[in-house]
């Protein structure tokens, strides 16, 4: 009996905790967005961070994009050749990348590489009193540290997803045209005809922007909200990757169904 009550109480505590964190995260987002206005004058802070995110993620994005494209080329060819439609390989590869794999895989890689690094960096700054020190120097850490990183994530994600898709198409071309002998002219012309700017490209960019927003928000919030010890920062980093990945996959389903208008 006592045990049942205890676990019920625990459940309640966990639930309240979660609600509290959500509330804090929302307030935090509000403050970050307000602080972002100040950065119009100090945009070099944002540019610096875009550069940092780029350095962290560019290589992994390019390599992954290439291989995902190559796999798409192989798999697509194998299926299409059964219907004698291997000429459409370019279209299949491009659509899969632009609509789905580009935004989603980039976001997952982004969360694992840049997101976790952001959380760890901010969490450690908190644990070593650098954020408190900044506040004592009359500098708002939300403006100076958090908002530039948040904006950088927003800007970087769609760019990275676009790069991922572009290099993926090249990977598909490499396998399809180079290895399996699909006609190069057909590969490109089918792609040009079949990929729609609004339905495919714009929707893909919207997805990657939303994922960038969610991943960066989670990353900076977890860092800022971390328990200021080494264990606390480790846990926060962990949470960033888990929550970001889950949010990306869930949101992908919601966004896709909205965009296709089928549910």
């Amino acid at each position: 009996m006592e045990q049942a009550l205890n676990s019920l109480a625990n459940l309640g505590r966990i639930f309240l905790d979660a609600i509290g964190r959500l509330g804090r995260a929302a307030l935090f987002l509000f403050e970050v967005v307000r602080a972002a206005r100040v950065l119009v004058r100090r945009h070099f802070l944002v540019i610096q961070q875009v550069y940092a995110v780029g350095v962290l993620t560019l290589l992994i994005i390019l390599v992954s994009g290439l291989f995902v494209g190559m796999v798409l080329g192989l798999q697509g060819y194998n299926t299409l050749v059964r219907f004698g439609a291997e000429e459409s390989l370019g279209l299949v590869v491009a659509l899969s990348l632009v609509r789905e794999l580009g935004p989603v895989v980039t976001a997952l890689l982004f969360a694992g590489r840049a997101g976790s690094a952001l959380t760890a960096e901010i969490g450690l700054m908190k644990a070593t009193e650098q954020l408190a020190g900044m506040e004592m120097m009359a500098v708002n850490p939300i403006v100076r540290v958090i908002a530039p990183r948040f904006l950088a994530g927003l800007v970087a994600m769609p760019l990275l997803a676009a790069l991922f898709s572009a290099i993926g198409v090249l990977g598909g071309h490499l396998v399809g045209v180079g290895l399996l002998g699909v006609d190069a002219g057909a590969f490109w012309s089918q792609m040009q005809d079949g990929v729609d700017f609004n339905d495919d490209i714009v929707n893909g960019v919207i997805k990657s922007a939303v994922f960038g927003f969610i991943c960066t928000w989670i990353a900076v919030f977890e860092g800022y909200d971390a328990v200021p010890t080494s264990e606390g920062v480790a846990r926060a980093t962990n949470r960033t990757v888990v929550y970001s990945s889950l949010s990306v996959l869930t949101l992908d389903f919601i966004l896709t169904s909205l965009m296709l208008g089928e549910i």
Partner: protein
Amino acid sequence: MNQPRNGAAKDDVLVDIRDVQFARGDRPILKGVTMAIRRGSVTAIMGGSGCGKTTLLNLIGGSLKPDSGAILVDGISVPDLSTNDLFELRKRMALLFQTGALFTDLSLFENVAFPIREHTRLPEPILRKVVLMKLETVGLRGARDLMPSELSGGMARRAALARAIALEPMMIMYDEPFTGLDPISKGVIGKLIRELNQSLGITSIVVSHDVAETCLISDYAYLMGDGRIMGEGTPAEVQRSGSEHVRQFMDGLPDGPVPYQYPAEAYLEDLTRWNKH
């Protein structure tokens, strides 16, 4: 209003703390602290670990708010300030953290330049001169290109000091400036605190449990214990004091009014029970 006990005239007092109480949850940390810190003096606040010294500095700096009582810095009530006004006040005071809190991603030079870049628009050549002057003061001009991870504890403390004086504040609060330093570095920091106080007229609050080093450089000393002021006076007065509590701290006796043991149940009973902890 009571005249401060250290005989300071009213506008001579830079930091005026009156009957401040502060609790964390249900646990009272400060139980009515009154202090008057004179302009241009070096004031020591001594007391055992966990007695609330850092908490008191955070209250003065406005990052915590007291449950009751008044905190005035330069005649301004700190707990009532809006964020903007608080930031304005903080440009005129500095807090040296127990850990130094240097920015790990910036070089020593950039660390010292940070507050200047944030709050002024000095052209680069002048900024460079100012930063080098501050670094020279603490003897680290040659180390300007090192990163904080490449500094020893004593150097980091001095670097943080250089950053703290970058904007020439009216007051610096030092949180445990001597802990973890060898006797020579302690002497260097002590001398720096004194020199900054004399040459720039910076009011200094030194929080420490290093009795000898602190008494050497301070004009006035408070002894805290159990969330209260246990004694105050010039360092000589405090050291001569007859109060048992003050004696215990000053002479470093392990047991006395401050018990050696954290409150616990009877020892024998605790040892002989074996089924539960």
